C-alpha cells in the first residue's frame, strides 16, 4: 500500500490544486476571523441553526481558547472546501480516464483506495496547518482593532493550538471522506460537491428547523462539535464516536463500490 500512497502523493503535487485548496483555507480563515471578531465585539450573535458557522460569545473569545476559536467557527466552510478537493481528486481519475491505467497497474483496488485516502489525509494535515497559522495571524490584528482583550491568549498556548488543530483536522478528514464517497459513487466532482454543499446548507438547516426531529446526530452538527471540542448539545466523545461511525460507513460503501464496480468510461 505504501507504493499506492507515494504514487498518489506524486499525483497530488498539482500546483493549481494545492494553490486552490490552501488559498481557500487562507481566505476563509481571514474572512471568518475578521467577521467573527467584528460580530462578537459588537454584541451580536448568530441566529441558532445558522448554516455553516458558529460564533463564540465575547467571554469565550477572550478566554485562552479564543485565539483558535476562528477554526471551529469556520469548520463547516473548511469542511466544504476539503470535501470539494477530495471529490475533485477522486472524480478526476474517472474524468481523465486515469482510473483505467491505475487499476490495470494495481488490480488490488482496495490498495489504490487506501493509498488515495492516506495521501489526501496527509495533505489535509497540511491544509489544517495553513488554516491554523493564518487563523493566528488574522485574529490578532482583528481583535486588536475591535478592542477585544487578548491578555489570556498566551495561556496554555501549546495545548490550545494543538487541540484546535487536532479537532479541525479530524473534522476535515471526515468531510474529505464524505467527498470521496460521493465522488466514488457519482464519478463526478460537480455532482459530489453539489450534494455535499447542498446537504450542509439546505438539508441540515431544514432538519434543524424541525423541532420534533433530533438534529445532534447530523453530519454537519457532529463535525462542528468535533472541530469545537464538543458543544453544549453534543459531547466531544459522542461527536468523535459518531464521526468514526460516519467514516467507517463511508469507507466501507466506497470500498465495496470501487472494488466491485466495472471500470468503464
Amino acid at each position, binding site marked *: 500500500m505504501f*507504493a499506492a500512497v507515494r504514487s498518489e502523493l506524486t499525483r497530488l503535487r498539482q500546483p493549481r490544486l494545492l494553490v486552490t485548496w490552501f488559498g481557500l483555507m487562507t481566505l476563509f480563515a481571514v474572512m471568518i476571523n475578521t467577521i467573527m471578531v467584528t460580530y462578537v465585539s459588537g454584541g451580536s450573535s448568530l441566529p441558532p441553526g445558522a448554516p455553516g458557522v458558529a460564533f463564540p460569545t465575547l467571554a469565550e473569545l477572550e478566554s485562552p481558547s479564543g485565539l483558535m476559536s476562528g477554526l471551529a467557527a469556520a469548520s463547516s466552510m473548511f469542511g466544504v472546501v476539503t470535501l470539494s478537493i477530495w471529490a475533485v481528486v477522486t472524480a478526476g481519475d474517472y474524468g481523465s480516464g486515469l482510473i483505467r491505467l491505475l487499476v490495470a497497474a494495481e488490480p488490488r483496488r482496495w490498495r489504490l483506495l487506501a493509498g488515495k485516502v492516506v495521501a489526501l489525509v496527509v495533505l489535509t494535515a497540511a491544509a489544517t496547518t495553513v488554516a491554523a497559522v493564518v487563523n493566528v495571524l488574522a485574529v490578532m490584528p482583528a481583535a486588536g482593532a475591535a478592542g477585544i482583550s487578548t491578555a489570556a491568549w498566551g495561556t496554555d498556548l501549546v495545548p490550545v493550538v494543538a487541540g484546535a488543530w487536532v479537532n479541525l483536522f479530524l473534522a476535515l478528514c471526515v468531510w474529505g471522506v464524505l467527498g470521496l464517497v460521493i465522488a466514488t459513487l457519482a464519478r463526478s466532482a460537480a455532482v459530489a460537491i453539489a450534494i455535499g454543499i447542498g446537504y450542509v446548507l439546505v438539508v441540515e438547516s431544514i432538519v434543524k428547523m424541525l423541532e420534533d426531529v433530533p438534529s445532534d446526530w447530523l453530519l454537519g452538527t457532529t463535525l462542528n462539535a468535533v472541530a469545537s471540542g464538543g458543544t453544549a448539545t453534543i459531547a466531544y466523545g459522542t461527536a468523535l464516536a459518531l464521526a468514526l461511525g460516519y467514516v467507517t460507513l463511508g469507507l466501507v460503501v466506497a470500498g465495496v463500490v470501487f472494488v466491485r464496480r466495472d471500470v468503464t468510461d
Partner: protein
Amino acid sequence: MSVVTTTNLTRRFGPITALDRLTVELPATGVIGLVGPNGSGKSTLIRILLGLIRPTSGSASVLGSAISSPAHYASRVGVLVESPAFIPGLSARTNLVSLARLRHVPLERVDAVLAQVGLVGRDREPVKRFSLGMKQRLGIAAALLSDPELLILDEPTNGLDPAGIVEIRELLRDLGREGRTVIVSSHQLSEIEAVCDHLVVIRFGELIFSGPMAEMMKRTREHIDIAAEHAADMERLEAALAAEGWAVTAVDDVLRVAAAADRAADLNRAAAAAGVTLRRLVFAQDNLEEIFLEMTGRVDGELANGRAAVDEKVA
C-alpha cells in the same frame, strides 16, 4: 505457449452482447493485431483481460494466470487503454514517476522509456501542452515502464502524424523482435497489415478469424482493373465482357475483373474485340482492408448493436 486464452468468454451490457462465447488463443510471439468494426467487442475484451470489467460467463487467462486474479500478471503487462490518460497539470516525467512508484519500478526506467518514445527534452512540460501525438507517445512510454512481457495497446498510432506513425510502427516491430508480445487494437488496417504477425478479427463479439497474418493474406483475391479510353464505352465494355463470361464489377471509374495477372492479355484482346481501346489495365490484389470488409461486412457494429437492442425491446 499462449499469452492470452479465452474460453466461451461472454460479456453482456443489458440487452447488448459485447462478447459472445469468444474462444481464442493468442500466441506468445511478435505483434498481434486485434481488429473489428466499431462495437465489435475489442475494448471489452481488453478491459476483461486487464481486470477492469468482469465477464458475464466464460473464462480467460493472461500469461498463464486466470483473469480472476489480475494482480498475478499485472506487473508483466503494459497497457495503453483507449486514449492516453494523464494529469494535465503535471509534467510528463511526474506522471510517469507516479506510475513507476505504483508499479514498484525503478525511476531510471522513466528516463529509458522517455528516450524510447522520443520525448526527452519535453518531459518537464505539463502534459496539457502536449499534442495528441505526444500524449500518445507518453501513453506508450507508460505502457513500457515495467518492461513488460506483454503489451496491450489500443489505437497506439491515433493522433500521430505520418512520421510519428512510421516511428511507432518501427517501435512496435522492435518490441516484437525483442521477444515481447504486443497486442495492438487498431482501426488503421494498413498499420496492422504492416506490423502484425498474427491477426484476430472480431465482429459482434464473435471470433471471425484468428491466425497468422500470412494465412489471412492468402484470402487475397486477384483482379484486373480496366478503363476504356472513352467513358462512354464503359457500359458497352462491361456488357461485352460479361457476355464472354468474365466476372465484372463497376468500381468507381473502373471495371474490376476477377482474374489472375496472366489473363491480362486475354482481357485486352476481349476489349479490342468489342471495339474498345483500353487506357488503363492494372493488376491488383485485395489488401487487408478489403479482405476485412469482405469478412465483417460494411456495417458499423455500434449502430448494429443499437438496432439489435431496440429490436429486442420492441419484441
